[in-house]
């Protein structure tokens, strides 16, 4: 029997201490995340409502993302159609391209690509902005002037993100379908009317509802993660960089997990 193993300062005792500290930190972080979310759902219902700031953030998140989203969505539509054609051509089924594009883009690619681009552009911007406001005491300045910084900064950004990501998703889906149409039209000489007839024929109401619900959840996640990381950042300029970086990484990670879970739920509903 090793009599030294429980001595203070011994290697096993140090390992236990480090493990306990890590576990402590994880539970404290989980509690903080819970409190942050709970505070959001509590404060969003009560006045004062920061409508002006919400509209400003909607513009920042929605309108300013349009050029990047347009380009990405359009190229994805063209590339996806182009890459899918040979597989269908082997079976002489290129006429099914519009249906394939429709199902893939509306069910998965549209919401996912929009969310990932927004996580990179919007999530990092929110994380960096709030992080910088925290370390330069701007958030404290709001608090001492009796303004609720959580409501002004967090509620407005999360709401704007939750509203604008679904709108951007719809736009990305449309632009991707247009990209796909151009490719189909060039190769199969399909008309726009026929293309969109086939597109809508291939999807169901459940696909549209699922896509919308998914993008609302993605939007909330991006806004909430960016705000949480930025609002709680510390350690000066280094903390600002970390907040921006971890906003993107965490949001992307959560988006993939959510995509997986929602897909399971939708498949279950579809089977039912």
């Amino acid at each position: 029997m090793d009599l030294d193993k429980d001595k203070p300062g011994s290697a096993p005792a140090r390992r236990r201490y480090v493990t306990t500290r890590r576990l402590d930190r994880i539970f404290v972080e989980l509690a903080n995340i819970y409190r942050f979310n709970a505070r959001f759902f509590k404060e969003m219902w009560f006045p004062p409502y920061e409508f002006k700031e919400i509209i400003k953030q909607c513009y920042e998140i929605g309108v300013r993302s349009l050029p990047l989203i347009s380009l990405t969505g359009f190229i994805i539509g063209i590339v996806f159609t182009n890459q899918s054609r040979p597989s269908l051509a082997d079976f002489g089924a290129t006429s099914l391209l519009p249906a394939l594009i429709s199902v893939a883009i509306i069910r998965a690619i549209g919401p996912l690509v929009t969310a990932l681009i927004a996580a990179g552009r919007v999530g990092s911007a929110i994380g960096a902005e709030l992080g910088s406001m925290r370390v330069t005491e701007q958030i404290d300045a709001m608090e001492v002037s009796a303004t609720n910084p959580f409501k002004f900064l967090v509620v407005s950004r999360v709401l704007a993100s939750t509203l604008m990501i679904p709108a951007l998703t719809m736009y990305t889906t449309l632009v991707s379908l247009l990209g796909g149409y151009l490719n189909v039209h060039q190769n199969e000489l399909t008309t726009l009317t026929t293309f969109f007839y086939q597109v809508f024929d291939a999807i169901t109401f459940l696909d549209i509802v699922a896509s919308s619900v998914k993008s609302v959840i993605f939007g909330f996640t991006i806004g909430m993660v960016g705000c949480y990381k930025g609002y709680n950042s510390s350690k000066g300029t280094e903390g600002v960089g970390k907040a921006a970086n971890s906003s993107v990484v965490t949001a992307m990670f959560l988006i993939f997990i959510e995509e997986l879970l929602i897909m399971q739920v939708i498949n279950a509903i579809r089977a039912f």
Partner: protein
Amino acid sequence: MEAKEINPNIDRNEKVISIRGLKKAFDDFEVLKGVDLDLFKGENLVVLGRSGTGKSVLIKIISGLLYGDEGSVNVLGKEVGTLKPRELDALRLKIGFSFQNSALYDSMTVRENLEFPLVRHAKHMSEGEREELIHYVLEAVGLAQAINQMPSELSGGQRKRIGIARTLILKPEIMLYDEPTAGLDPITCIEINNLINEVQRRFNTSSIIITHDLTCARAVGDRVVMLLDGQFQREGTFEEVFDSHDERVQSFYNYNFID
């Protein structure tokens, strides 16, 4: 720099801030070890001390940004630690806090920075009245021309002035200055010192000025207290505080080359 003449309008019978036995620790490090402090109406009180001695922590506790571990902090008759959020907000409207780095909202112009508290807390004011008040405080800090500039376009001294203007716009009874002259050149320091005295005279405020700059302390303080080892060790006029054989006080004085 001339020592300040003590303000004759100080009311020694009316305490606007009264602190007793205040303790505050961060993890195992005890910053404040039982601080007692009174601020009288109309008085400029300078809190001197080296970096890391808890001066800023003290005014953050007074404004409710931090909470003390023990002791009482009474501001304008209210016990800060026991106030509900709404009561604390009501109290904060009577306190102006000038941050070390000014803490101007850098996505807003100077006008928007000044409008920010007004829009939320002076809803009864018309747009014209708001505009008039903004011009009044900007003129008081000598920066009326900067109204449409962004904070990034201002110098350090100008940012400090706008920060002070933003706190003055709600006409506070108490001003808390955190290192008002830190990082400024000597001439701008003198301008800021004059501004602090001007604010006291024109807006009839009671102020706590946190600093380690002795020139500033001498120029603006009606009374000076010195924070050493987590407690106030010296108190009085500037000359009284430094008329001491305490080595720590002397070394603090010698490192600040005044006169």
